[in-house]
């Protein structure tokens, strides 16, 4: 900033209040909320680090055990399997963090000013409400997104052994959103939803509730209805997709001998006539083989694991675009909102 000459301003136009000053204002007013997020994420990070080291240790025990599949190795692998169960709860908690950011950082940001009337103070200061809103939204958005980004890296490391061991597929909905660009993108979206809910609803608690509801709707609706359509799914005939590379399967049906889709009841009836070895199979493919011999073909639709990054970028892209639209709309609403 020293050597570069500032662009000339028309005479009489005041130089705007610098962003650094507005940065201080943002920090001073929202440090409590940011500290809350930091304590929460920091605590979880320490927990992930400690349990992550244990998981990696337990995984080493599995890997280094010879001969694999022996009774001794089955015993040696038990702690690792136990870790996987615990990790399930961690995943559930982590999925809620973006919602908390939206509710406790995003929603009160403007709602509290509007509710308590302090916007009449803030919006009549020399910096102008446009710059004020832009500074606050930008800085807080960057802070929560960066924190979530760092956290998703930590989580990827934490969970890596379970992916390597094929305990889960990387496209599994609850894990997909915690990794790559998803976690920061969903956090940013939650923040943006909270911010716009605050300026629209003008009351803190209703804005919190509304932002939670909208975020939950999107977070549940996306894996259920939207994500599988990012790319046409693969359709597979015969035995299920290889579990060496667990895919995200969301459709499975049988075509009967006459070329029509067979109902579950029909399939059950057919299998009921099969020999006991097929009905209580050691090999899960035995039933499929039996059905196939009777001209019932199994079909699958699925998304292969190789599409992980492609899906990450598609979803991250629209989440980012939606977040930016919401943030811009929030600034616009602040600009035109009448007292």
């Amino acid at each position, binding site marked *: 900033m020293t050597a570069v000459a500032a662009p000339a301003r028309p005479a009489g136009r005041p130089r705007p*209040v610098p962003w650094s000053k507005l940065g201080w204002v943002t920090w001073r007013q929202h440090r409590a909320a940011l500290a809350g997020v930091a304590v929460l994420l920091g605590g979880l990070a320490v927990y992930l680090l400690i349990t992550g080291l244990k998981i990696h240790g337990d995984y080493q025990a599995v890997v280094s055990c010879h001969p694999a599949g022996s009774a001794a190795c089955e015993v040696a692998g038990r702690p690792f399997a136990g870790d996987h169960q615990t990790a399930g709860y961690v995943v559930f908690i982590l999925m809620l963090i973006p919602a908390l950011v939206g509710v406790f950082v995003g929603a009160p940001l403007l709602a509290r000013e509007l509710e308590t009337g302090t916007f009449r103070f803030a919006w*009549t200061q020399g910096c102008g409400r446009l710059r004020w809103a832009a500074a606050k939204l930008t800085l807080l958005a960057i802070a929560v997104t960066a924190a979530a980004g760092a956290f998703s890296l930590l989580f990827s490391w934490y969970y890596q052994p379970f992916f390597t061991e094929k305990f889960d597929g990387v496209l599994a909905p609850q894990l997909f959103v915690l990794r790559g660009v998803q976690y920061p993108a969903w956090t940013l979206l939650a923040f943006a939803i909270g911010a716009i809910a605050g300026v629209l609803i003008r009351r803190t608690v209703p804005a919190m509730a509304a932002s939670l509801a909208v975020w939950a709707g999107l977070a549940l609706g996306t894996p259920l209805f939207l994500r599988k359509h990012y790319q046409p799914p693969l359709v597979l005939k015969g035995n299920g997709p290889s579990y060496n590379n667990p895919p995200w399967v969301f459709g499975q049906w049988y075509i009967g001998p006459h070329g029509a889709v067979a109902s579950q009841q029909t399939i059950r009836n057919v299998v009921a006539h099969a020999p006991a070895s097929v009905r209580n199979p050691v090999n899960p493919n035995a039933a499929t083989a039996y059905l196939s011999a009777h001209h019932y073909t199994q079909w699958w639709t699925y998304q292969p694991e190789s599409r992980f990054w492609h899906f990450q970028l598609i979803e991250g892209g629209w989440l980012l675009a939606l977040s930016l639209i919401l943030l811009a709309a929030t600034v616009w609403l602040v600009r035109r909102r009448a007292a």
Partner: protein
Amino acid sequence: MNVIETSGLGKRYGRTWALEDAALAIPAGYVVALVGPNGAGKTTLLHMSVGLTRPTAGQVTVLGSEPAGSPAALDQIAFVAQDAPLYKNLPVADMLHLTRNLNRRWDQQRAEARLKELSIPLDRKVGKLSGGQQAQLALTLALARRPALLVLDEPLASLDPLARHDFMASLMAAVAEDELSVLLSSHVIADLERMADYLIVLSHGQVQVAGEVDALLAEHCMLTGPVAAADDAAKRHAVVHARRAGTQAHLLVRSQRAAEPAPPGWEVSPVGLEELVLAYLREPGAAALPGPVGPVARATQDIGSRA
């Protein structure tokens, strides 16, 4: 330069006009009292002047020709909203720091000196201060911005009599110190009587009176005489408000010619500001506005003949 200039300014909420067709030109250097009953449109007018509310019709410019609410305008206008909203969870020192960082111009020394004078501790939370102290803090923050125009919305409404007195004393001292124009609203004219030198009366969303206090007082007087002659007198004078008490009639009249001799049988006495304001508020159709005198005088005359 006019600190506030409006033409055809109006604001409608739903079907009601909070303010309608307001034409004002307030010159710099005055302490302007904006007076009117609750709901007259005072806050609406002030909010439009600082850009918090957008006009439905007409326009408002401030400090020459800056559009109200533009950064250039806000840079030179300090506004204290009703009930002096401040961040109650911040200590006073941080409230100062915050306001400093939200503004281009800031006089920290002045702010600290004023707070010291008022014995407001810097480390106390704003929410823990008394109502009077919060109002004083809001005024301090506004003055430390070194504004050309200070706008205060009902600054006294929530204060007890002592705090009210102290606040007005602080404000008068600041006005004496700076070349500061002040626009403040109140529904109690008595509060502003001693310091206002420009008066605007708003009633039902209409500007009823606008002008220098001295000029307004000079061109109004009270005629006291027999009731029997009241109608006759009303024909010859622009009566703003007529009051009958027994056999006596009191006519508050606006005379275009200064020092007009009293009609025979009538006694002339000067009017006070409060009396003047009340007379206009009781007659919402009457107006005393600068500009073309004809229609105004006629309107006043009509009221007079009705009275």
